[in-house]
Every structure is written in structure tokens, then in C-alpha cells.
């Protein structure tokens, strides 16, 4: 046979085989279920094996229940990650599901700027109900008339004290202060200066660590920065002024904010002034005991309790200081399957596994009141107690503000706090000023984006 004919024969054979294969595949394609060969891309900020262990088993379960779906885990570095998310989503190259490590930013900003899509269309289809979540969590997910994501966990604060420092100062190491008045009294006993007037130990520096969150002390004095229902800022409410006044007083008793800040290791995060012995009491997040104290100060003898409150404010009042949220970016290729996955992760099992493993608070009814939770993280029983109180009295645990301008307003408030701490302004003047700045800023935003800011931020 000539070479040419041989080649033609081979090609012919290939054509036939290829055609057969293709047609057989077409047949199988038609025969498969609707979820065929979908890859859901999942972006998370962490590649921590701990987080993998807390989430991936449920991903694999989901894949088993929905054959044809594969979930791809992509860890996005935390630095500048909002740049990454924004550029990708804006160009239509975002993932299907994102788990963010914080609530605000970015959730309200993303909602206001159409980077994530509301989940309401799938509520009926997937039988989702508001009652799955605690009311304050629901208020974080549901704003401006739509549901923007599912909170996976939320964090509250813990009041931590160094038991050895209490003993040395003649205080009962097992009894923390429960009111602001008691806190002041304890502070007097625990704050020590040397002969030159420099701090050796501070009782508490109210604006250290998480105390620097503008909402924290305001809440303990019964105030709040943002009215969720009216969608308005209430920065200069009398309770907020009272809280800031108190902070200014404490700053003075420490010798001034410059001295106190110079005394502290100002680097936040894992360099913590409690375990370095610089302060005796501090405001910490619920993740501190396992992630910070256990790692960096395993021998420290410390106590955990709810924070002290002002008169008239129930003991057990706390704030939601942050949360992780599942969201679906605009442009997700498989929104139904993404919504299914997000809902799947809201079941008691995955929620409890994460919240016990990370010592966070479950956002769902099925998770928070499940006895396994308190068994798994005993010191978080106070979070459960706070939750029960908050069901009857919403002021006990306020949701994180859903204002998309809160990042800017919050930083202005922090500046006001500093002005009072440094003795440059009175609390009332500083907060009146910030309220004005915030209102101006909201008005500006309204001008440029009336659709979103029309009914208030």
C-alpha cells in the first residue's frame, strides 16, 4: 500500500473512532443529573490545616450528596485581599463562594457596591427560614431589605484578668469586677508607678487590644453607635459620651495617654500586654485563650468573665466584635449550587465543629443552644448566657453595624477617642463633632448613590 493511502486509512479510522466517542459522550451527558461536572471555587483567607480540618470533611460530604460537584479550596493571602477580591469580582473572575474573615468591612460595602449578590431568590427553593439564626445575627445578614450572606460564626469579647496580679494586690483572684465602679476600685489597687512616675503595671488600659473598638465601652455604658432599625448614626448619644468621659478619666489616672501608650507594647495582634505582665486586666476576643494565651503564655494563670457594666446595664452585656461570613459574589457561575453549599455549612454539625475548634460563637439556633457547644468550650458558657439574655432584651447584644460607611465613620470615632484620651477635647465636644462628620459623609454618599443610601445607610 502506498504511504499516502496508509495515512488516509489511519485518519479515517481516527475519524470514526472519534465520532463514536463523541456521540457516546453526548449520550452520557444527556443521561446525567443536572449537577454534572461543576467545580465550585471556594475562596478563603486561610490555608491553616486547622481550618481545613474544620471545613473540608463537610465539603466532601456535600460532594457525595451532590455527585458531579467538586469544591476547590483556594487560599487567598490576607494582605490586601480586598484588592484581590475587588479586582477579580469587578472583572467577572471571582469565585463561587467566599468565606470572609470579617464582617464590616467588607460585607456592607460589597453589598452597597454590587460585588455580592443577595440570597433571597433561593430562600423558597432551598427552604431557608429566618428562624435558623439568632435575631442579632439575622440583622447582620439581612439589611436594606435583602439577605446578603450567611454568618458562619461570630465573636464576642471576654474580660480577662491575671489571677496572680490580683493576689499580689490583695484582691480575690476568683472575683472579677462586675461594675464600672468596681473596675475603678480594682484599677486603683492594681496600677503601680515607680519612683520616677513611670508605669510599672496598669490595672487596665481601656483602649488596649479590643477595647479600642469604638463600640465596646459605649455598649457597656448602655450606648450604641448605630441604630440598626432606623439606619442612622447615634454617635453622640449620652451613654457614648459617658463612656468616653470615663475613658478620659482613666487616661488621666494612668498619667496621660502618651505615657500609657508608650508603656504598652503597641503592636497589636499576638504581642499582648496581659501576658507580658504590663496590665492586670484586659478586653480580649473569644479566640484569645486557645490562640494567644495557650501559645504564647501557657503558664499564665488567668480568669475569664463577662465585662463590667455601668449602672442600669445588665451584667452579661457584650458586643458582636466580628464574624466570618459566607457570601456569593456577583458573577458566580453556579449560584444555585453555591447557595446549596452555603446552606449546607449552616447545619449544626459544621457550625459546631468550627465554633468549638476555634472558640467562636455559633450563629444558629441549632448550634448555640446545643449542649455539645458548652461541653466543647466551657469558658464560652458566658456567651450562651448572654445570648439567652439577648433573646429577651436585644440591647444586651447588639449586632455589628451594617452601615457600609462604618469603616470610615469608625476611624473618625477612633480619632475622637484619641482626642479625649490625650486630653485635647472633652468627650461631648469630640462626639458632637464626629456625629456631624458622619452625617455629612452619609449625605455625600446619598448624593452619589441614592439607590442604596436613600432610606439611610
Amino acid at each position, binding site marked *: 500500500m502506498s504511504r499516502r493511502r496508509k495515512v488516509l486509512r489511519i485518519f479515517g479510522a481516527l475519524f470514526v473512532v472519534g465520532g463514536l466517542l463523541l456521540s457516546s459522550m453526548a449520550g452520557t451527558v444527556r443521561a446525567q443529573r443536572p449537577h454534572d461536572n461543576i467545580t465550585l471555587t471556594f475562596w478563603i483567607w486561610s490555608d491553616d490545616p486547622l481550618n481545613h480540618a474544620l471545613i473540608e470533611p463537610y465539603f466532601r460530604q456535600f460532594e457525595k450528596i451532590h455527585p458531579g460537584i467538586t469544591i476547590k479550596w483556594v487560599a487567598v493571602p490576607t494582605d490586601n485581599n480586598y484588592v484581590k477580591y475587588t*479586582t477579580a469580582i469587578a472583572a467577572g473572575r471571582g469565585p463561587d463562594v467566599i468565606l470572609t474573615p470579617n464582617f464590616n468591612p467588607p460585607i456592607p460595602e460589597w453589598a452597597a457596591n454590587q460585588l455580592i449578590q443577595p440570597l433571597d431568590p433561593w430562600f423558597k427553593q432551598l427552604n431557608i427560614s429566618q428562624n435558623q439564626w439568632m435575631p442579632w445575627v439575622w440583622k447582620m445578614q439581612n439589611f436594606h431589605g435583602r439577605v446578603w450572606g450567611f454568618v458562619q460564626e461570630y465573636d464576642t469579647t471576654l474580660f480577662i484578668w491575671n489571677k496572680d496580679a490580683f493576689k499580689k494586690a490583695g484582691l480575690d483572684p476568683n472575683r472579677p469586677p462586675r461594675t464600672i465602679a468596681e473596675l475603678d476600685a480594682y484599677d486603683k489597687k492594681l496600677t503601680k508607678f515607680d519612683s520616677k512616675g513611670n508605669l510599672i503595671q496598669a490595672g487596665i488600659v481601656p483602649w488596649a487590644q479590643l477595647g479600642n473598638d469604638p463600640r465596646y465601652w459605649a455598649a457597656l455604658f448602655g450606648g450604641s453607635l448605630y441604630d440598626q432599625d432606623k439606619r442612622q448614626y447615634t454617635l453622640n448619644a449620652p451613654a457614648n459620651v459617658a463612656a468616653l468621659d470615663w475613658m478620659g478619666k482613666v487616661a488621666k489616672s494612668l498619667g496621660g495617654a502618651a505615657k500609657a501608650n508608650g508603656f504598652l507594647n503597641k503592636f497589636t495582634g499576638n504581642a499582648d500586654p496581659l501576658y507580658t505582665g504590663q496590665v492586670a486586666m484586659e478586653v480580649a476576643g473569644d479566640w484569645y485563650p486557645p490562640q494567644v494565651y495557650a501559645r504564647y503564655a501557657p503558664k499564665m494563670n488567668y480568669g475569664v468573665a463577662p465585662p463590667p457594666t455601668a449602672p442600669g446595664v445588665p451584667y452579661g452585656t457584650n458586643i458582636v466584635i466580628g464574624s466570618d461570613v459566607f457570601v456569593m459574589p456577583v458573577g458566580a457561575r453556579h449560584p444555585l449550587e453555591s447557595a446549596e453549599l452555603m446552606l449546607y455549612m449552616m447545619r449544626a454539625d459544621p457550625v459546631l465543629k468550627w465554633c468549638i475548634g476555634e472558640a467562636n460563637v455559633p450563629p444558629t439556633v441549632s448550634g448555640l443552644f446545643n449542649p455539645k457547644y458548652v461541653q466543647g468550650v466551657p469558658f464560652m458558657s458566658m456567651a450562651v448566657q448572654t445570648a439567652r439574655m439577648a433573646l429577651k432584651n436585644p440591647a444586651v447584644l447588639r449586632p455589628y453595624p451594617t452601615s457600609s460607611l462604618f469603616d470610615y465613620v469608625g476611624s473618625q470615632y477612633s480619632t475622637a477617642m484619641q482626642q479625649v484620651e490625650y486630653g485635647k477635647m472633652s468627650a461631648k465636644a469630640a462626639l458632637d463633632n464626629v456625629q456631624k462628620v458622619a452625617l455629612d459623609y452619609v449625605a455625600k454618599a446619598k448624593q452619589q448613590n441614592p439607590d442604596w443610601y436613600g432610606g439611610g445607610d
Partner: protein
Amino acid sequence: MDNLDRAGRSSAELAAGGAAQAVHRQRARWWTSTRGIERIKIGAVFLVLCALSLLYFLPIYWMISTSLKVDAQIFTNPPTWIPNPIRWSNYYDALNDAISHFPFLQDLRNTLTITVPAVTGTVVSSSIVAYSLARIKWPGRDILFGLILATMMIPQWVTLIPLYIFFVKIGWVGTFLPLTVPSWTGDAFSIFLLRQFFRQQPQEMFDAAGIDGANHFGMFWRIVLPLAKPALAVVTLFSFLNNWTDFINPLIYLSDPSMYTLMLGQYAFFGAHHTYWSELMAADVMILAPLVVLFFFTQRFFIEGVTFTGLRG
């Protein structure tokens, strides 16, 4: 420019005259004490450098010592300067998924895949463009130079999104191309640097070559480039550094972890609510060690061993 010519000529005359006198002076004793003064000067400078280098070495020292510490010693007050015990296993842990998945070799391969073409492109294209700005007289040259300078003055944050969208449209997002190809069109910083160096080169050499009939290609290849070895070495070094430690661009253009670079990979040690500092520092030491080695051994290209053959002989 005239000043320098005049300075050069008068110094040459002085040198010729002074040489004769130097021979005469060698016999006198103050020549020896000059050497003594030299020694004292060098000694003083040495001490100053020692003191300053303690400060400059501190960051690296902190990295290395933290990479060898147990967690409890990292944030003590006062700081623990010498780890005790020394935990060499942090390095092992960082590489072997004990804490988090940090595929060092894979990320290294990716980083090299980007850095080598990018550096080559920068050096080649920037020197070509710099030659045009420094050694060819053409109308509009200074305007172009101004334009190149101007592009350095806009922060990247506001051009990031349009550029990203452009790369999406041509299908380059998700590949290494946005990280390597633009380097082949010249980098403003390198162009500026090389232009300054090229302009510093003595005019006499170019005049001589011009008389000999060399065209621009010849002058570029045979005169400008060899004389500019220190500057080219500097450009290579900086370009290598910038590409190796670039974070933002790999962050937005790469979404597949198997393509991540070393700078992205180190984020494996930023956990959910905390940072694995000792393993992170171990990873950083490994990521940055090649840069230190590179600098140490390429010093001589831009510092020593370069003789200025131009005007002598």
C-alpha cells in the same frame, strides 16, 4: 558640562607635574605619616560602620532569632534576644506541612519562572531605551523622558483595575504573562537610572567612535554597555529583588495555588486569628536567603573590579 571638561584638563596637567614632585617627596618623612593618617581614618570609619550596622542588622537578626524560638519566647517583655532552646525544627515544620501547607519548591519554581524572564526583559529593554534618551539627539527626546518619569508618579492603586480588566480581555489573567511580558517594554526606574549613567560616560569615546564610522548599534554594543557594567548590575539586582518580593501583582493575577509565588505562599502561616510567627519567619528566611546571597556575590560587579579605562592610557 564645560566645568567638568575644564576640571579634567587642569587636573591632568597637575597630575603630570605632581608626579615628578611625588618622587622627590617620597624620600621625606611626611609621606609615611600620611599613611598613618590613612590608617586612623579607616579605623574611625570602621568603628562608625560597626555601630551603625548593628542597627541595620537588627531586622534580619529578629527574623532569624524568631525563626528559632518557641512561641512562648517570641513576644516577651523585655524581648528575648537569644532563643533558648534553639528550635531548628521550625524550619522542618515550615516545609513539611506540620503547621500549614507551604510548597516551597513549587513556589520557588514559580517565582523563578516569573523572575528570570522579567529581569532579563527589564535589563535588555531598559538599556535600549536609555540609550535613546542619553546618547541619541532627537527632537522630542526630552518630552519622552518626562513622560517616562511621569508614569512613575501615579500610584498603582488607581490603575490596577483598568489594567486588570485589560488583561482579562486578552485572556492573560491566570497566567504568568502579566507578570513577565510588561518587563520587556522597559521599566521607568531602570530607564532613568541607566540614562543617568550613560550620560556620565565620556563624550570623547563617542566622538572617537563616530570618527571611526561606528553607528548607533555599534556604539551601544561596544562602548555604552561595557562601560555601564556597574549600572547594569544594579538594574539586574533591583529588578530581581522587585520581582522576587512582588506581592500585589501575583496576588491579583494568579488564582490557582499551584501557580503561587513564594511571597504568596508564605501566607500559609497567617492563620485564622493569629500568625504562626516562628514558622513564618523560618519561611521568610528561606525565601529571602537567595536575595542575600545574590547581593553578597554580585557586589563586585557594581563595586569592585571595574577599572575606568576611558581617559587613561
